């Protein structure tokens, strides 16, 4: 599975940090999504998270049987599906004092049309 655009002239190598609102723009792309666990189902392997823009997203864990700690903030790296869910490759727990609103401000600035080229091309 390649998260990169297959057009050879337009190879994109970056993995942008996004929030739930930006997922539709990156369908098929590998992205990094940070959010707080709302529910984690070790039966289906689905995790519902609250992202930094206070919206919801669904992550499909690579290990379906894993259970993530509720209310813990994680960083997920994976591919955006057609349903705007994330099919994860890996996840990392963040510390308890991680400030989601701050993070969201950074995302908005980094995706601003004037500056996005500094970050994700």
């Amino acid at each position: 599975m390649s998260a990169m655009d297959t057009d050879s002239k337009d190879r994109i190598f970056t993995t942008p940090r996004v929030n739930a609102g930006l997922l539709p723009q990156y369908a098929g792309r590998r992205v990094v999504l940070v959010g707080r666990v709302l529910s984690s189902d070790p039966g289906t392997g689905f995790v519902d998270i609250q992202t930094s823009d206070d919206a919801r997203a669904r992550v499909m864990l690579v290990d379906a049987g894993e259970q993530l700690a509720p209310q813990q903030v994680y960083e997920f790296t994976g591919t955006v599906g057609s349903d705007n869910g994330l099919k994860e490759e890996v996840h990392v727990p963040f510390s308890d004092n991680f400030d989601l609103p701050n993070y969201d401000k950074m995302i908005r600035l980094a995706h601003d049309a004037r500056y996005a080229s500094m970050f994700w091309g």
Partner: protein
Amino acid sequence: PAAPRPQMPQQQAPQTLRPQQPMRQYGGHPPAQSPQQPKQEPPSASTAGPQGQFGGRGPVAQSSAMHTSAGGDRIIPIRGLNPYQNRWTIKARIVNKSDVKRWDKGPNNQGQLFSCTLMDSEGTEIRATFFRDAVDKFFEMLQENNVYTFSGGRTKTANRQYSRVDNDFELTFDAHSEIQHVANDSSIQEVNLARVKIADIANRNPGDFVDVLGVAVEIGNIEEFVSKAGKDLVKLEVGIVDESQATIRVTLWGDRSREFHAKVTEMQNPIVGFKGAKISDWGGRTLGTMMGSQILIEPEIPDTATLRQWFEAGGASQNATSLSGRGGGSFAPKKLTERNTIASIMEQNLGNSEKPDVIECKGTIMYIPTDKMWYFACPEEGNNKKVERNADGTWTCEATGQTYNTKENRYIMKASIADFTGSAYVTFFNEQAIEVLGGKTADELETLKEENEAEFTKLMQSHLFHTYVMRLRVKMEEYNDQKRQRCSISSVSKVDYVKESKDLIDAIESYV
């Protein structure tokens, strides 16, 4: 009022003849032993009853019940004191205690003294000075803010030149005076702080005295230096902020600064008050403590609670105006946008004026040379002077000549710090070095180095590449005909990443 006692007329006569002498007559000679006092009771009760209205000059072993009795007729108000009456007891709180002043100008001109301001339940204040042996007897015992009964003192006209206390008289006490600690008397006001908001100090004149209360947000290091007159001076600079959103630098002088420093560095943003601080226009507006100033830590007054609430609700994190200009700058943590880059130290040619430049920057510790990280200091409390090793293993203080069995290591740690613009070598003194070395004192580090060099190296490595927000003092100094910028760290704090990222975003957003 007690019935007149046989001895009173007797002792009063000499009083009128030799007004300067009365203390000598009574001092240390319990009337109980005088044959003219047939009614004298056993020492422990000798000062009760028969001795009358103003308490006694009896043996030192007086029952404290006598002085703290609810019977106020034993204790007179301070306003009742006058030079013609020497048998009195007053009950007062020590609202101010000075350092001991010693002098030695020759075989016949040596001495020591300290003074206090006493305040009674009526709020009357009076200055009291303790000379010679009284210093040895009473200096340690008398604590600011405690209440004592005093008798055996002499009243004389006040020398207003030396005292700001509003009283025509002042007291002197000697070794024969009697002073007893009593339980806190709430009828005597704790502290009367007529506080002026820091922002208003800008409107006051230099030379005026003022009372302030604020949160100590910046506590400098004890600085020892020799004045132009050749005197050994000790000072401490403290930055305080209050609800008027203004900060000001306060300089504390003398041994009191050491005591203050020791106490407040253990505390988190303590509320401190200064009574009778002098306003100076040096460096904008600053405050200095004089011998008569009072230094308070967490005073029990209502304003302390209000200030604490304001501070904890984030009051001081907004922009505070600094009244103290360059040579210190704002003592509230500087805004991120007011920080200097490390490259700017050279670029802006800092340290060239009379006072060192104080800047704040965020830097990462890159390298710490491990030789000569500390010097050997005097183990005595408050004395950090260098000591030299003697052949027999003892240590002699360079300044005082005293010899000790041990020494105390104190850091003078050089380190290379860097940010995205460049790097610089700086010196960390004891307190700040301990902070960046994870709390290891220089004594502990020396032991580790001697016992397990591998662990020592590992430990030193573990403290590299940590990032801190640091306050630097930069001074251009000449050394062997070469002018070099010397940077020392006056405060260091771990980066609070949540706050730091918020500040960075705010700074960026203000540009876009």
